[in-house]
């Protein structure tokens, strides 16, 4: 057993976390190299070698696996720098990705242009072939047309081709045949088949997901091949693994073919770490919130497993694969507070960004922001923002809020600042309600895990509004995605459309499909078997009342046992109950239909133990570094509030609010009555009064 290295490439820093059976876990960071991510990755490995006082080759020889979170896919979609991509569809349906089922991101923003066409109409070709909904071939494939399309794409310099036929998820013969033809005519081209990328009914979701896969995979493949080669040349005998959007990891060579599954590679690690640290701290149900400068991300961990969703949009293009369910709204430290013409105080969605940034940055910003309010309220120390790396100007913050908010509304400066603070909290809580209440979950059953520079400043007030009992703030947050990488397991997720009504008896067919899905998923894990200690099979079925259009996903008992008729009726019962729990009513006895089957194969590795520090108790005074005036709504006034140095906090020390704890990357605000303790896994636990 040797080193396990987790690396997460972020926009600014490339983070790493290293574990070894006989050594203490350690982490660090190097600057990212956006032009070529692999340079930053290599620099990270070099730094690890240095810390271990080893030659690079020696370190790599002793390394079992390297797990990577990458932004290559995300960036290709953000900057639209994917491969030149063509699309072959069933004749008559090349505009599926243009009609987009008439989806609109912003209902009344008539100025919103159409999404960037990653495959413009001129590169979308319809050819003769047609399969009906039962899988019967209505029109045979015109192989000659497929050949012509291949030659045309070749002459146009198209590098990657998405093949998207109607009902290919029922009968893939034509897509498979076209792949052969493309290989014959144009072997250099990358090919993505829609029934392989997402074998699921609803052509818009399937075509769009396949198109993205075709667009991002060639660059990803080049990058991963380059890394694999770079490591093996330097003596690395182990496996390069990559974080996928579904919260698990996969061998790099498999992942390279399915770029679209890496869209949330980085955040995925963060969510895994959330689930893991939450579990260690005794919280299996968590809502993770990450409050940055311009955006606020939330996602849900239920029973220590991150929730997945198939409703994702990537740079305004639809991805229908199950991915960790991150919900983002425009709220953050840079969100601008303003008074509208009706006399209402609003916060966001406009943001001051990093430049000019909040007024207190002194970079010319004059609009008051959430960060300015946090400064005026005494929550952020202008001299210790981000560990003192940026000096803030409190006077500029006061002036902006006074001029732009307090004066127009005829209220005091502190009323205005506190108002901004409460309104942005409310907006963020609505995002939390969106991922919890809207899905039939009660936020009170969850603990909040707060990240981001501004997250822990606001979390204490948010938990009060949401009636949440605990907030968790992990000290390890800054390298969370890399930490999540070394904690993650192999995971292969499969979806397959399968139609059956509860009045039909097709349980044998259903088992057959599950078996095929299992085999497909297993083939991806098989090569990595010696790393696995256990393989879990989780199966789910999407169900609805006949004629409903949306489904409820019901989980089957763990394992891979074939379903019996009795097991199936138990599942229908479970559906009725879950429908009632979610929507307030059920219709027992009314027929139900199965739409999709889902299967997750999780290959568990030897668990990585996180270091545990014993609770030694001790006095809060050991960590106290002074006091400052901070405003608390509960007191309707400023109070001289003790300030603690996070780096001097030890497990077991209890602090009672009002209090401020300063960490290098963030500040935690405790409201009067709230208490906080650092737990043995370096996670602060804030408890409600």
């Amino acid at each position, binding site marked *: 057993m040797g080193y396990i290295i987790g690396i997460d490439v972020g926009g600014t820093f490339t983070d790493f976390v290293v574990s070894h059976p006989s050594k203490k876990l350690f982490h660090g960071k190097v600057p990212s190299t956006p032009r070529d991510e692999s340079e930053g990755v290599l620099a990270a490995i070099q730094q690890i070698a240095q810390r271990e006082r080893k030659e690079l080759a020696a370190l790599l020889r002793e390394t079992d696996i390297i797990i990577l979170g990458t932004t290559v896919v995300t960036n290709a979609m953000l900057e639209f720098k994917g491969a030149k991509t063509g699309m072959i569809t069933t*004749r*008559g*349906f090349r*505009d599926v990705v*243009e*009609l987009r*089922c*008439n*989806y*609109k991101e912003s*209902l*009344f923003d*008539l*100025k*919103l242009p*159409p999404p960037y066409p990653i495959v*413009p*109409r001129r590169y979308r070709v319809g050819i*003769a072939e*047609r399969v*009906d909904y039962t899988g019967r071939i*209505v*029109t*045979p494939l*015109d192989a000659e047309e497929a050949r012509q399309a291949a030659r045309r794409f070749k002459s146009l310099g198209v590098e990657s081709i998405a093949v998207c036929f109607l*009902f290919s998820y029922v009968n893939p013969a034509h897509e498979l045949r076209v792949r052969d033809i493309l290989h014959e005519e144009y072997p250099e081209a990358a090919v993505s088949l829609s029934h392989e990328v997402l074998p699921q*009914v*609803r*052509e818009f*979701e399937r075509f769009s997901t396949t198109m993205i896969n075709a667009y991002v995979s060639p660059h990803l493949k080049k990058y991963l091949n380059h890394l694999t080669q770079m490591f093996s040349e330097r003596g690395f005998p182990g496996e390069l693994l990559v974080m996928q959007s579904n919260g698990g990891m996969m061998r790099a060579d498999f992942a390279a073919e399915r770029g679209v599954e890496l869209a949330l590679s980085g955040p995925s690690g963060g969510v895994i770490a959330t689930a893991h640290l939450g579990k260690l701290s005794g919280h299996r149900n968590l809502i993770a919130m990450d409050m940055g400068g311009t955006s606020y991300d939330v996602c849900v961990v239920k029973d220590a497993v991150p929730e997945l969703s198939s409703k994702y949009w990537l740079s305004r293009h639809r991805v229908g694969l199950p991915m960790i369910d991150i919900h983002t709204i425009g709220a953050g430290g840079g969100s601008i507070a303003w*008074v*509208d*013409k*009706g*006399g*209402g*105080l609003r916060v966001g969605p406009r943001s001051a960004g990093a430049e000019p940034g909040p007024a207190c940055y002194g970079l010319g910003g004059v609009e008051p922001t959430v960060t300015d309010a946090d400064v005026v309220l005494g929550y952020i120390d202008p001299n210790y923002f981000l560990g003192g790396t940026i000096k803030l100007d409190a006077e500029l913050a006061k002036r902006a809020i006074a001029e732009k908010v307090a004066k127009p509304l005829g*209220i005091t400066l502190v*009323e205005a600042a506190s*108002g901004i603070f409460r*309104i942005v909290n*409310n*907006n963020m809580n*609505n995002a939390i*309600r*969106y991922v919890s*209440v*809207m899905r039939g979950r009660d936020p009170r059953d969850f603990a909040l895990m707060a990240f981001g520079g501004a997250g822990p400043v606001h979390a204490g007030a948010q938990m009060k509004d949401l009636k949440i009992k605990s907030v968790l703030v992990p000290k390890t947050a800054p390298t969370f995605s890399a930490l999540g990488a070394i904690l993650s397991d192999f995971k292969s997720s499969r979806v397959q459309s399968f*139609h059956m009504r509860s009045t039909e008896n097709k349980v044998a067919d259903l088992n057959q499909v599950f078996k095929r899905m299992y085999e497909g998923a297993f083939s991806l894990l098989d090569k990595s078997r010696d790393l696995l200690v256990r393989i879990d099979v989780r199966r789910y079925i999407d169900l609805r*009342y*006949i*004629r*409903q*259009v*949306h489904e409820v996903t019901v989980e089957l008992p763990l394992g891979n046992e074939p379903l019996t008729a009795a097991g199936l009726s138990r599942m229908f019962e479970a559906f009725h109950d879950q429908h009632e729990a*979610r*929507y*307030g*009513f059920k219709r027992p006895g*009314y027929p139900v239909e199965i739409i999709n089957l889902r299967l997750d194969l999780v290959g568990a590795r030897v668990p990585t133990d996180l270091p545990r520090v014993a609770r030694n108790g001790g006095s809060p005074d050991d960590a106290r570094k002074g006091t400052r005036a901070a405003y608390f709504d509960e007191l309707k006034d400023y109070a001289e509030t003790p300030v603690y140095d996070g780096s001097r906090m030890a497990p077991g020390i209890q602090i009672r609010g009002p209090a401020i704890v300063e960490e290098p990357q963030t500040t935690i605000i405790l409201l009067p009555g709230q208490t906080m303790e650092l737990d043995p896994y370096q996670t602060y636990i804030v408890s409600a009064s």
Partner: protein
Amino acid sequence: MKTNGKGGKANGRRAEAGLDAIAFEIVKNKMLAAINEAGAVLVRTSASEVVVTVREFTQSYYTSDGHLTLTGGGILLHVKSIADIVRYLIDNYEHTIGINDGDMFIFSDPYLGGMHAPDQAIVAPIFWQGKRVGFCASLTHIPDTGAIDAGGFCPRATEVYQEGIRLRGLRVMRGGVRCDDVFNTLKAAVRLPDIVELDVLSKIASNNVLIRRAQELIEKYGLETYLATNRELIRYSERLARERTRKIADGQWRSVTYLEHDGQQPNLFRIQLTATKRGDRLILDYTGSSPQAATSINATYHAAMGCAFAILAGRLFYDIPWNEGILRPLELRLPDNCIINAQYPAAVSQGMPAGGGVVVFAVQDVLSKMLLASGDDLRRESSGVFGWSVHAPVMSGSNQYGNFFIWPTMDECAGGMGARVDRDGVGTAGTIQTPKVRIGNIEEYEQRYPMLFLFRREEQDSAGAGKFRGGAGGEFCFMLHKSSTGYIDIMLSGAGCEPAIALGVAGGLPARQGRFVKVKDSDAAALLRQGRIAQSLQELTGEKEMLPPKGYARIENRDCFYLAWHGGGGFGDPLERGPELVRQDIIDQLVSRRFAECVYGVVVTGANADIDRAATARAREEIRRQRLAQAA
């Protein structure tokens, strides 16, 4: 003449006493979140295509005396009229059968509110500690009303009595308990009892969300803050709406749109709108519009009002909380016995999309011109008229499983957006009045209904030309496939098939008309077997029958049905369009070379569509010359 009363005097800027701006913002946002949550419950539980895909639903909050304070949902057409329903409920039942905690009342009478009988609202009082503190309501379009025609649009109807069951406040929930007598009565009256029942349950679930969230708000912020926020919301929206109205140029604009068919035969109805803007008031006067029809294309006052509200809310007041406040600057004048203010018991089931539908076009047309004459930031809001063929063909019959189905197709809601003053409209992107409409996937259609589609795509040359063009409209064509009876019936309820009503602005051209075509005894199936998928009507043999915009058609085995829907109107003179933009559209096959030459005066050559500069200059000069040549 029916008017909505004078838009009262503007209220002062200062908010309600005792209500601070911060509490107001927080409670307002929480109410909005509750409305969205209730909408999600509706969408996820309903069985109606129209609710789930088209998003034809509305949820809203009212004061205890029936004033709309906040609304949301997928369709803007209904929000105003439900307030009238709530007031009807109070006036008629408060002191008779009583309005108690846990009660819910069901309505579907177009003469009380909504657009037509399929629009079904459930209204519930909100109680706090034994006292009524407000109302909430959820509305959806149900798929059948038991009318003379399946689906509830009734070309044959001449009186509202033939248009299905009309409900005037039956108590569907009593003290929190469901009233099976009402459910059973309603189910017995319609063709799709299971779906209608599920839709009623969905609306009850949605109202329960609205009630629970309101009670949580009261518990947390106090009853006074909740009530004050509701009152203030109306005034707040009014202030913002007046402020924006004031910025529009003062003046008077006129627009005329037409209906070419009365549901039974070709006819001609005129809807004339004179818009007068003065200070912070806007008067929409329909004097001069045609008298009401003997058929069902009439709109009620509520439908006409709803259509006007929808366009103003979507185009002008999109960022202001939607409630009665935004209507206060507006005065609507509708002559009596008019096609858009029909008198009971006129038939009105096709009033939306017919009579009311064209109100949508007329209001957009005047608004675009008003904005163009206003200051720079409003000028940028001007655009060509959005495509919306108001077609809604309702298909019904037996599906491949032998079950009866009713399917109101809504693909035409993916119209092209109007061109803007500085860019092209977005293609197949949707309407203003139903912004959340989704169109279904072909794979879902073919799984549910006995059809096989030959194509669904953007239509070449469908957009209104201009310096900036409208977004493209679309077209589809299907044949029957695996039908258990060998036919389906289609009820057509369109407009804008003869008159071009997706108008351009400032010299931009209108988008093409929409079309319904039936191909009798086509060879589509034989072609498919031979490996050919017909991509145009020309490629099909068989008699091509241009169907009327309204009426009935039967599609049998071997027949094909074709529908083309509107693109958006163009902006500005097409001769001012950059030749390279025209070339790009040619390469993407959105514009044909012939259209480019005739309309844009742009000539391209070769496979790369290279611009022939000299020929282009000559073509444009020739077009100018012809324009000034003495008209015949």
